[in-house]
């Protein structure tokens, strides 16, 4: 499945605690075009609920969430 998502930008947010993952990804998504996808990697367990909340509020879409050990990877499509 992950092979099917075309990633336009990768953000390494590992090791950063709240609020930086959401702050950085909100900046990063403005650097891609609408319709493009960011792959954001974080080790903040709070991100599992925070990223969806951020996406709903900011009008963007989480296409997929992967978890590999401590690393959580979000594939986020810029919709707004």
């Amino acid at each position: 499945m992950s092979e099917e998502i075309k990633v336009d930008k990768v953000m390494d947010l590992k090791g950063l605690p709240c609020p930086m993952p959401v702050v950085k990804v909100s900046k990063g998504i403005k650097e891609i075009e609408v319709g493009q996808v960011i792959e954001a990697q974080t080790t903040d367990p709070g991100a599992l609920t925070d990223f969806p909340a951020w996406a709903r509020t900011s009008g963007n879409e989480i296409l997929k969430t992967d978890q590999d050990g401590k690393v959580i990877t979000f594939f986020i499509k810029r919709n707004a």
Partner: protein
Amino acid sequence: MKKNDLETQFAELKTKVETLSAESAENKLSMIVFSGDMDKVLASLIIASGAVAMGMDVVMFFTFWGTPILRDKGKKVGGKDLMGTMFGAMLPKGACNVKLSKMNMGGMGTAMMKSLMKKKNVASVEEMLAVAGELGVQIYVCEMSMDLMGFKREEMIAYPNMDFCGVATFLEEAKNSKIQLFI
């Protein structure tokens, strides 16, 4: 229904919508930072930066014990009266000087918390202030607190969006905000 009636109704509706949209709250967060405790100020800055990430405008009003957080430890100003000099010496000089609201234990607790925060990569108050500035968070400083504590504008940090104001400015912002917090 006659065409004239429809036109009148339409005009009435249009006026109503215009009034309502003028009165409705903006996508904005207004916060009063009254506390000068490290933990509380840090929380307020985390909420502020998170709110910007969520697409909100953020306005923070620093008043009373929150005011000294915005002093620049590197700046020295003269010409203060006795009380001003005393307050200036007793109150924290900038964000690096603030203490925890609990478990300060004569500074030991705060020092331990600071080293723990560093180890866990949690941003300090100073760092979060820089982030807030970068994100365009507007800071207002209570003019009355400044005057009361004898602070001068020249001794405050060089923050990109900082203005000095009174209660009316806060209330105007708060009235138009979806969220208002007092910390």
